[in-house]
């Protein structure tokens, strides 16, 4: 047909659409280029092949499944085939990727934590794989480099650990999650007492506090009416089994002490926490979302971020 019209056009000259504008303006009615016509026919042939190979036409309550199949391993560990669909293909690709990564993950699973960090090949795997898991799942709160956010989420790159910095403790924190809590003291203590306590807490990490107030605050801290020592312990260094903060170092999470311009504002920040307490510091449990190997990778990654304990 294409050849026919082509030769027609050649013998009779190209036809026009028949309209004439302004006396001499005509529109040529050229036939479609031959390459275009055949490409069009080729797409029809492609569609026919596609119908046969892939799921296509609906029939009653089912559909033509197509001849293409995907083979994967089912929950019983047996190979199974199903007609091609994106879910089957994904299952195959996931299992294939697991197979290829297995040598590394087997090594990670089999070795104790400290050995992983020492093995140069594995530790570079942990850094790259751990980093990608960290970026997607942890960075939203702990920030891209693990530096955290004062007032919200702990810094993972320093030496200070609320719940413990050993591999086992980090693994537990990631798997099971955490929930921070400090009762509010705004009602049980009066404003002067809160101020004395804040001065004492500020002095613990070397801040320039009012010494007279700090001395009174110290008494209150260790008394049963203040009762701070119940959780933060006698030496104010906190207890990692309940996640109470170490008050003697310069690391601050809830009170934004480093962000304030002068000592009065720093102490005011501490007062705020004492008055209203804390009912935040929630870390979600990752057990269901990440698998055991990913959590082990992350544990090593986070441990290396902060130099661990």
């Amino acid at each position: 047909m294409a050849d026919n019209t082509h030769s027609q056009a050649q013998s009779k000259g190209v036809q026009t659409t028949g309209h004439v504008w302004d006396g001499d303006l005509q529109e040529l009615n050229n036939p479609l280029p031959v390459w275009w016509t055949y490409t069009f026919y080729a797409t029809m042939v492609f569609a026919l092949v596609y119908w046969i190979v892939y799921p296509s036409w609906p029939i009653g309550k089912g559909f033509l499944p197509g001849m293409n199949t995907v083979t994967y391993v089912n929950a019983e560990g047996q190979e199974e085939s199903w007609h091609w669909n994106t879910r089957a293909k994904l299952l195959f690709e996931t299992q294939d990727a697991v197979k290829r990564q297995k040598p590394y993950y087997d090594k990670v699973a089999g070795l104790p934590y400290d050995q992983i960090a020492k093995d140069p090949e594995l530790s570079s795997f942990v850094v790259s794989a751990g980093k990608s898991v960290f970026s997607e799942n942890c960075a939203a709160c702990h920030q891209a480099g693990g530096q955290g956010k004062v007032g919200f989420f702990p810094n993972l790159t320093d030496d200070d650990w609320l719940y413990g910095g050993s591999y086992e403790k980090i693994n537990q924190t990631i798997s099971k999650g955490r929930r921070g809590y400090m009762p509010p003291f705004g009602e049980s203590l009066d404003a002067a007492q809160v101020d004395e306590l804040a001065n004492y807490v500020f002095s613990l990490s070397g801040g320039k506090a009012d010494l007279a107030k700090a001395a009174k605050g110290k008494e209150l801290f260790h008394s049963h009416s203040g009762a701070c020592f119940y959780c933060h312990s006698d030496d104010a260094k906190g207890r990692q089994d309940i996640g109470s903060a170490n008050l003697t170092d310069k690391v601050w999470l809830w009170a934004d002490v480093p962000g304030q311009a002068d000592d009065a504002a720093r102490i005011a920040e501490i007062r705020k926490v004492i008055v209203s307490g804390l009912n935040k510091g929630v870390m979600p449990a990752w057990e269901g979302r990440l698998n055991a190997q990913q959590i082990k990778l992350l544990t090593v990654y986070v441990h290396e971020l902060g130099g661990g304990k």
Partner: protein
Amino acid sequence: MFKNFKHEKIETNAGLLLVLTMLAVSIGGLVEIAPLFFLKDTVENVDGVRPYTPLESRGRDIYIREGCYTCHSQMIRPFRDEQLRYGHYSLAAESKYDHPFQWGSKRTGPDLARVGGKYSNEWHVQHLIKPTSMVPESVMPNYQWLQENKLDVSDIGDRMRALRITGVPYSANDEEYQRNVKQFGEAVAKTLHIPDALKNLVAQAQEGNFDGDRSSVSEMDAVVAYLQVLGTMVDFSKIKPEDLVKFR
């Protein structure tokens, strides 16, 4: 029959062109869309999917009001890269009570189909108030008014009744309530009972304390409650992956 057929006849006859174009388009619709209503494999048969509680449902209304769907999809496609980033691919069953569904075909922000439980409530609150304070490179606008606005709960019953007309099994009477107890269990059925909607909404906001402030129910409470339930209803550890493969 086609010996003297010229395509020009169609092209120069507007009425004929219109009829034939409509015929061609409706064949596409009939073949691609209509069968989905009859195929038995379209919606997977999985446990756990339930209608939203009154508070979550109001959160969803605000999600739509603020146009979150223009940047966030709620559909994880069955590709490996998406599964690695967002989690298990979405099932049709998971949005069967969504009217309208929030699948979306364009992402500026990440997919939210499984954001539930991924971050803490306080992260969501802070992130909604000022996204760049949590994610410095974010281009998401601030939604600080969610925390300030009290949630309008005056028409919660009407909203549920409207959804009930579309087929969401909220119960309006005892008979329907008993049917829900059978289908979803008593604890869930209670949250779906329209006469108790307001009581349930306030109770969930109080218990969940989503915005960190128990003194009132804010729009933030509702939005965070909604975000925290997204993608959490189906327990995939109890489903064999090949069973889902066979639903296609």
